């Protein structure tokens, strides 16, 4: 048995033995794993600075092994600007949900992108406010129920789901804009590649990257783990199709 | 001894520059305390402009005073607006090209007239009306020695040396007018 070869090891980007505080079936833990692996793969785990948004992503602070700081709700783009401009050798990423990035923080999100800050933005879009208990987000689908839209999102009253990648794609400065998901092994690997590419790009000083990851929220969607994946594929990915909006050469 | 001056006019008359020239030169060439406080209207161009200069051998309190020792008015509206702030026995300097001394409705202040707009045109240096008025002011009050201002002009136009002489000349013309009305 001593001949066994280790073919898979947990990323050092996550504390050894740590258990994430995320709900069962939540994809946040997958994304955290991918960030750790991507940082390891580009050899910059010890340069990693996580600028954490507010919401479920805040649970990540107990889980990740590297440097982090908490930005006020929505301000990650501004805080990351301050960090990166003052410490250009750091590998700075923001980790934000849809309420954080697209509602309260839209000004900071757009402006950091528009300045072409040399940072990586990880945007986890599950169409709902998770930690506060299922309120409507800018990305909530039409007809989808939320605690603050008990009859479901209605266009006349709430407007339409907001497409962040498409909005950022109007700006000239960003170098990489992609939307992906982590529902299958293939998509998981693809997403890791994207994060790796964005990190590599940042280390080379090439500029801003936005990676939107469409995910589920089984708890607040009121669905089982597998049902919510089905729902995501059928509805979320229809509204938010995956794709490469802009890629570096 | 503290001396409070207000300079008032409209934008483009060099009101701020006149105040700054006086106060900066005082800072550079004397041991006196001095403050300069600008006050603009909300509009970026045109409109009113005025500033306050306080020169003192003691600590300066408010950089803005409404009991003035000296008031310089470069246009009519400033005269009417600020004349009541001048102390009894204070000095009123008027740009007599466009302000009529007859409009001064007080007989307890000393009026010093100088047609600075016309004088500036006459010497082909229409922007120098403020420097001429500064000369009038220093000539009539001895608020600071004339050499202090001349040094200040040399310093201000360090990078445009061809402007030093005409401005010093303009200043001296004003100085004579001021001395004559002392």
């Amino acid at each position, binding site marked *: 048995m001593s001949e066994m070869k280790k073919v898979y090891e947990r990323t050092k980007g996550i504390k050894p033995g740590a258990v994430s505080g995320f709900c069962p079936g939540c994809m946040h833990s997958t994304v955290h794993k991918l960030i750790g692996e991507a940082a390891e793969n580009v050899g910059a785990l010890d340069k990693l600075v996580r600028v954490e948004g507010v919401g479920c992503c805040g649970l990540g602070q107990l889980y990740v092994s590297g*440097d982090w700081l908490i930005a006020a709700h929505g301000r990650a783009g501004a805080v990351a600007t301050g960090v990166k401009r003052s410490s250009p050798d750091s590998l700075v990423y923001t980790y934000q949900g849809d309420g954080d990035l697209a509602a309260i923080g839209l000004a900071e999100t757009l402006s950091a992108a528009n300045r072409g800050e040399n940072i990586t933005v990880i945007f986890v879009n599950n169409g709902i406010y998770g930690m506060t208990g299922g309120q409507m987000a800018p990305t909530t689908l039409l007809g989808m129920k939320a605690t603050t839209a008990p009859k479901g999102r209605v266009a006349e009253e709430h407007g339409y789901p907001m497409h962040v990648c498409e909005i950022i794609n109007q700006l000239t400065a960003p170098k990489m804009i992609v939307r992906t998901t982590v529902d299958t092994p293939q998509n998981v690997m693809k997403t890791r590649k994207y994060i790796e590419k964005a990190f590599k790009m940042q280390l080379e000083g090439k500029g801003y990257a936005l990676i939107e990851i469409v995910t589920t929220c089984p708890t607040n969607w009121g669905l089982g783990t597998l049902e919510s994946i089905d729902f995501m594929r059928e509805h979320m990915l229809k509204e938010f199709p995956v794709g490469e909006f802009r890629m570096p050469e | 001894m503290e001396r409070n001056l207000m300079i008032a006019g409209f934008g483009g008359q060099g009101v701020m520059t006149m105040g700054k020239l006086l106060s900066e030169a005082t*800072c550079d060439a004397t041991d006196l305390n001095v403050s300069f406080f600008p006050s603009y209207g909300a509009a970026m161009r045109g409109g009113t402009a005025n500033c306050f200069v306080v020169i003192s051998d003691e600590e300066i*309190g408010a*950089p803005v005073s409404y009991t003035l020792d000296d008031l310089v008015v470069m246009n009519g509206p400033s005269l009417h607006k600020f004349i009541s702030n001048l102390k009894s026995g204070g000095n009123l300097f008027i740009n007599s090209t466009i302000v009529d001394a007859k409009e001064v409705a007080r007989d307890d202040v000393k009026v010093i007239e100088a047609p600075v707009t016309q004088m500036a045109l006459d010497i082909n240096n229409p922007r120098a009306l403020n420097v001429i008025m500064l000369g009038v002011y220093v000539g009539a009050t001895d608020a600071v020695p004339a050499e202090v201002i001349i040094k200040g002009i040399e310093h201000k136009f360090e990078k445009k040396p061809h402007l030093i002489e005409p401005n010093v000349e303009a200043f001296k013309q004003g100085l004579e007018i001021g001395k004559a009305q002392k």
Partner: protein
Amino acid sequence: MAERVFMKGCEAIAEAATRAGCRFFAGYPITPQNEIPEYFARRMPEVGGTFVQGESEVASVNMLYGAALTGIRAMSSSSSCGISLYSEGVSYMAAARVPAVYVNVQRGGPGIGAIQPAQQDYNQATKASGNGGFKMIVLAPATVQECVDMVYEAFDLAARDENPVLVLTDGVMGTMMEPVVLPPMKSDEEVAALREAFAHRAVIGHKPLDQHTGEPGGIGDGWEKHNIETAEMYKTWDKDVRVEEFMMDDAEIVLAAYGISARISKVIVKQLRKEGIKAGMIRPITVSPFPYDTFANLDPSKVKGILDVEMSIPAQMRFDIDHAVCGRIPVMECLRSGGQLLTNDQVLAGARELIKEVL
């Protein structure tokens, strides 16, 4: 004596910060402090620093927070209604114990108020600059020279306590020009050493598990522990209380004022003395920590009345005075607000009224 130069308050503040080793500034345009960001925009590139014009005050203060946590000396500035938007970021900086400096060049209020000077942010500055009940050292300069000296020193205080420091000035000092003697420029080596002094906490990336985090608190009992520790640190500020007592030895009436109001009050005290009236002045230089003891120790058998002089209606600092004096000495007010400046004459009139009442 070093050469004196004639400088506008805002520009003098920015130059003093640069000389103190500040290498990051983020800010947003608002009158009457625009010359601060404008100066930094020119100056920072000359010294290898960074200037960012934020998309809002909210963004600017959060940039400051991120920058300061890397250990760089960082600063921001704004004015009254802009400072309201700083509350969020300042509270985060107090929570994370970030050594940062910011300046409030006060203007009239409330709301958008007036672009002209005022002192209407006293309570906000000294009692509640954000949620959570944190405290800061708040310095209140009364001259452009003091603006320079206090901004220069604010960085040291911020670094010492790992806590934000506020310099509370106003639109008079921001826009006026006065002669100043500038402090020495810190060398690149000194600036690097200052940054290194924060290396134990800098959030710049470290080996796994060697992690530095912005938050000393955290889930569970972390925050209370943090608050208890921070409260202990606040107690050490007794030694930092600074106050100017002018002609107080035999004073029978006392003018109490900070910042711009104090320099006016001082002139009036001198004038009253010439008339044979025993006037004095107490000027809090740190408005937080407030010199309560100075007021508490006033002897009511000697001091007959206090005139609280502020450019705020209603009065704000007066409540700190009341808290210390406890009704033992009558307090009257001499106030302006909304961008209307106090003048020597008004303060003199206020003092005469007090004299009529109590002497």
